[in-house]
């Protein structure tokens, strides 16, 4: 029987929400790791019972948890993230050099082909890899060692590597994004990296079209067409048709093109979803109306989706990793808010229902589809 498992990371623990394919009646399990910040929870596409979670705390540091039974039970695995060699410096907020310091893991990306292999995107920005189920971690130092590294600067949320995209058609190719350095690509399995930020314009920078320094909030890729990327930048929704070599803006008629989350329909690679947020100084929806906007044309032409979403007095945010889709025949779309709601649309965005209303602030949402 088909079904879905929604993995939710919050400011105070993780939750697992599950339902059958109708996505009407939900079972809520959790909190797991109660009281800890859970930045990200994601399952292996190879073995859906294998799930990794990033558990972090200002008091006790970073832990990685692993489940081998679909989230029923968990055990801590390796939490030693040591930069390769002498870490050197990046730029601090005021432009002065600042030593690289490990703070937390923002994103865990399990391999597409091996349940034991998982990548971790960390703050201060670096990419780590484990090939033994999260027990040991090794930095893919070519990224941080890129010549531009000393010029990277933290965004408001810290200098985090928050997006990792694995190309299903080319195991050597991978994309990552860093706030506020920009997007990067490797074509040799992580040894060498190149910035892929041409076409991005960031007016807060001294050189708005610089090679690095852009505050990329999230990047999404459809597995059937991995050379096409969609980006929610700090401001601007962007598209690339050549693996990030060149970007162009597709914000079109969006009421505001600031936002964090962006995702793509499971079966329609030209159908995108974003949640417009008023501005970088007011992190909530315009006019207190929570709206997902959908484009069925790969950008530029957008429509608001409001059925079932609060259209007054709503002042939550939707963070970069807090939107996901399932791959059931009727593609489900999910997102979580800083107000603790997790919404589900079982019909590609046409209508929405809250699975839960009152969780802690949601940091991340991922979905596993059980067929």
């Amino acid at each position, binding site marked *: 029987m088909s079904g879905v498992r929604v993995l939710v990371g919050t400011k105070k623990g993780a939750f697992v929400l599950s339902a059958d394919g109708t996505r009407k009646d939900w079972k809520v399990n959790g909190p797991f790791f*109660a*009281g*800890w910040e859970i930045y990200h929870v994601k399952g292996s596409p190879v073995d859906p019972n294998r799930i990794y979670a990033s558990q972090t*705390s*200002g*008091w*006790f*540091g*970073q*832990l990685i948890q692993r489940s081998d039974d679909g989230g029923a039970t968990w055990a*801590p695995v390796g*939490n*030693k*993230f*040591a930069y390769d060699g002498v870490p050197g410096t990046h730029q601090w907020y005021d432009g002065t050099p600042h030593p690289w310091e490990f703070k937390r893991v923002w994103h865990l990306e399990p391999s597409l082909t091996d349940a034991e292999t998982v990548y971790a995107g960390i703050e201060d920005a670096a990419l780590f890899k484990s090939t033994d189920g999260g027990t040991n971690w090794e930095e893919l130092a070519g990224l941080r060692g890129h010549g531009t590294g000393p010029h990277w600067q933290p965004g408001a949320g810290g200098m985090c590597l928050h997006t990792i995209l694995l190309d299903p058609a080319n195991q050597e190719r991978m994309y990552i994004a860093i706030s506020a350095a920009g997007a990067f690509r490797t074509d040799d399995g992580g040894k060498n990296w190149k910035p892929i930020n041409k076409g991005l314009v960031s007016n807060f920078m001294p050189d708005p079209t610089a090679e690095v320094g852009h505050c990329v909030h999230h990047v999404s890729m459809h597995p059937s067409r991995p050379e096409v990327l969609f980006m929610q930048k700090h401001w601007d929704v962007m598209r690339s048709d050549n693996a990030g070599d060149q970007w162009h803006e597709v914000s079109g008629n969006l009421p505001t093109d600031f936002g964090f989350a962006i995702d793509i329909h499971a079966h329609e690679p030209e159908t995108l979803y974003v949640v417009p947020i008023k501005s970088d100084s007011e992190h909530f929806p315009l006019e207190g109306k929570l709206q997902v906007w959908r484009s069925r044309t790969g950008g530029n032409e957008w429509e608001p989706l409001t059925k079932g979403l609060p259209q007054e007095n709503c002042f939550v945010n939707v963070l970069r990793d807090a939107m996901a889709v399932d791959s059931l025949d009727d593609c489900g779309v999910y997102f979580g808010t800083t107000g603790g709601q997790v919404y589900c649309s079982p019909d590609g965005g046409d209508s929405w229902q809250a699975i839960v209303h009152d969780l802690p602030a949601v940091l991340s949402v991922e979905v596993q589809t059980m067929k």
Partner: protein
Amino acid sequence: MTGNREQGIGNRAALVRVVLPQHLRTLAGVGIEVELEVGRPVTVRRVLDALEARYPMLGGTIREYGTGQRRAFLRFFACEEDWSHEGMDVELPAAVAEGREPLLIIGAIAGG
């Protein structure tokens, strides 16, 4: 066990009581207090070494990997005194080494 007799009490491993903050108790799957065999002289470093050896999941949660320093929002107390800023290798009070008083690891009250 003639070895212990020959070494005398001064060289025998101490049985030290350690009180952990709630989140670390949950993580390690223990109660409020754990009891550890610690080599003498009993210092914070030796207590933490023994604690992490018994409960590897606590590695990195009390002291930073790399520097080995106490995490900023944790404090060490013993015999109603703050030992957080003493060196890790300073000998703890006899009452701790003798198990009459615990070493307390406390999370700072922060965050509102």
